[in-house]
């Protein structure tokens, strides 16, 4: 009999767990944040300080990538959906529409600062001195015919010297993030497209056939010269260390933390440093955003205070703790404007 009682207890426990799983009501007393893995290191710092300094719980932050974050964010209103999504690019019009369809109409957009994207190689090798045109010619899927005619050919270049005689005679080998990454999107847009635009006839194409132009200017070659090394930037740093001939693409904060191992390539005469990214003279930098559901303010405790913490000078200012973590702050007046519009909870009207 004792055995069967034990068995009954186990059965009841299992059933109770199942039932409570379904019953735990979708209510929350902490902020739920999703989105970009690039913004993640900055948002987490703010969240942790916010949790320590206030009576609110520390927000929970998931690193889902910019696109994945938008999908979750736009799925609807209510405690089971996230309150904030981080993005390493601006929300797309299509995503804004998706949000609207699901009732997420009042969205507050916050631009928090910038992140530089660096092309780096091992300290053991010489630093590269590149232009965006070199980068496009080395990494574009289709590039202008080397004979000078205005036609496109599949990328024929094997070494950097073929791209530009001033560059060293080493194989083109670039380690970078996969297409799902916001870093990759931004790199394609800023570096590749920036280089493609330097050919007037490609630039002219933009007005005629935008789709075709984008396909030319933003596609990365797939013949092995560009190596997808996963989302983990530390791994790219390690691989660069092992292979001094390769270049790697990652965020500025990783360059700063690994300055004993890797060095940033000079792009258009500018070395990637805190100052050159902040004053925009370094050409490959991108804005970082997060988006907030206005309708969740007052429902989920602490969102307003979180916004206040994020937009305070001690966080995103020039001497703030986010700058210590490698984020590049905006200019003083831009910060002031942004902070007042955010704390006034101005919503996005259209994109």
């Amino acid at each position: 009999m004792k055995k069967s009682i034990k068995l009954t207890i186990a059965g009841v426990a299992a059933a109770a767990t199942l039932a409570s799983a379904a019953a735990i009501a979708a209510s929350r007393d902490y902020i739920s944040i999703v989105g970009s893995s690039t913004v993640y290191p900055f948002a987490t710092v703010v969240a942790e300080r916010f949790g320590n300094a206030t009576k609110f719980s520390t927000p929970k932050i998931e690193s889902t990538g910019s696109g994945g974050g938008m999908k979750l964010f736009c799925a609807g209103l209510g405690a089971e959906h996230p309150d904030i999504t981080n993005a390493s690019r601006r929300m797309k019009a299509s995503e804004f529409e998706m949000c609207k369809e699901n009732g997420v109409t009042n969205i507050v957009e916050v631009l928090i600062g910038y992140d530089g994207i660096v092309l780096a190689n091992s300290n053991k090798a010489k630093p590269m001195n590149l232009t965006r045109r070199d980068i496009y010619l080395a990494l574009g899927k289709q590039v202008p015919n080397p004979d000078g005619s205005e036609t496109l050919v599949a990328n024929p270049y094997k070494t950097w010297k073929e791209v530009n005689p001033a560059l060293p005679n080493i194989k083109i080998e670039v380690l970078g993030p996969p297409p799902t990454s916001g870093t990759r999107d931004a790199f394609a847009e800023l570096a590749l497209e920036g280089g493609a635009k330097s050919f007037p006839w490609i630039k002219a194409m933009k007005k005629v056939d935008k789709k075709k132009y984008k396909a030319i200017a933003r596609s990365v070659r797939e013949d092995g010269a560009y190596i997808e090394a996963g989302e983990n930037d530390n791994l790219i740093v390690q691989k660069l260390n092992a292979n001094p001939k390769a270049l790697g693409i990652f965020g500025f904060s990783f360059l700063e933390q690994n300055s004993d191992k890797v060095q940033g390539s000079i792009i258009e005469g500018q070395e990637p440093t805190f100052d050159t990214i902040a004053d925009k003279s370094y050409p490959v930098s991108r804005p970082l955003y997060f988006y907030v559901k206005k309708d969740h303010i007052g429902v989920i405790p602490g969102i307003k205070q979180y916004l206040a913490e994020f937009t305070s000078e001690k966080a995103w200012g020039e001497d703030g703790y986010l700058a210590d973590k490698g984020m590049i702050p905006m200019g003083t007046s831009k910060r002031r404007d942004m902070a007042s519009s955010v704390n006034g909870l101005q919503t996005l009207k259209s994109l």
Partner: protein
Amino acid sequence: MTDQAKAPVESTIDKVNKTLARRYRAEKRFRLYGMLSIGFGLLALVVLFTDIISKGKGAFLQSYIQLEVTYDSDVLGVYDVNDEDQMALANFEGVVKQALRNRFPEVSSRKDKKELYQLASLGAAFELRKQLTADPQLLGKTETLWLLADDDIDTYYKTIGGEEFIGATSDKQRAWTKSLVDADEIELKFNINFFTRGDSREPELAGIWGAAKGSFFTLLITLVLSFPIGVAAAIYLEEFAPKNKWTDLIEVNINNLAAVPSIIFGLLGLAVFINFFHTPRSTPIVAGLVLTLMTLPTIIISSRAAIKAVPPSIRQAAMGMGASPMQVVLHHVLPLAMPGMLTGSIIGMAQALGESAPLLMIGLVAFVVDVPGAINDPATVLPVQIYLWADSPERAFVEKTSAAIMVLLAFLIAMNTLAVFLRKRLERRW
């Protein structure tokens, strides 16, 4: 032909003797292959462990700086320790800054002071808050305390004497650290934070306890659900179910489920538990439910094997004494099969402990600072914590990652040892 002509008669024993040496050699080679495989496996294990331990051992020690700290009422803004509002706003960071200024009085410019303040961790202020709350008498007094150093200083200090890691430290910060070293005012102490705190973006404050507790709650739910369900399914299939096409189909499906990649269970969990039942994301309960689905086939298969191993004579004897089928199962078969079932379950649990792929889909890959206190608090689990730290830019997280791997391996080894012990202890042979 000519050979045969010279030795026309060859007895069996000659034939055997002739090939004997070759057969011995083949025998030796065969054993050598086995030993080589084991050696290769061991070598891989040794390389893995030395790599992890050499990288991770530093994480168990953390640099502390000795400072003279004055709990100055005016700096803190606290005049009555029992006043909660005053304590909530108290400026403990200011006290730490003051202590650093007193230690290095020659630092004057604003920029230098900012660099100086970076020597101490944010955790130093937390520690002071704890001290003062515990002992209100300290207000206004000066104490010599060991305070937590910043992660950059910590990594630099740990590499002094070897290949120095400069990282984000400035020349001045390194000079200050050196002067602290000369005065014996910086030292490595046991890193208690690592075992008591949740995740943090400051490597010196980041701990494994939050993830360990998340893993504990998750496994608890997995065990409570999958063990009874798995055992009940196994007993029915083995003892009571008729043998027909349906049970064959079920058996094939269970065996198939055991081989389904775990990420599929994550997708299933996302669709069923989160999107349909609205179970909250990122909680041990949803993780436990998903891992239950993943572990069930393992438990059912091993439980069935354990039940099969109970000799039919036991059942027949019990039947002969007049026991009902249920009594046969509960009084005789189940106790005898229990060791095998437990071993199978523990191995299933160990598998679940190390699993991270299905948890990606249901939001367990999250930054969670607060240590979870219940099954519906946001949490992460050990393997996910390792993944998150491995992806962090701060150099000090490299050693934390390896240390977290060590903790996870320790848990896995403990669980597998328990499985072996239980099997040895409870096993019956017929």
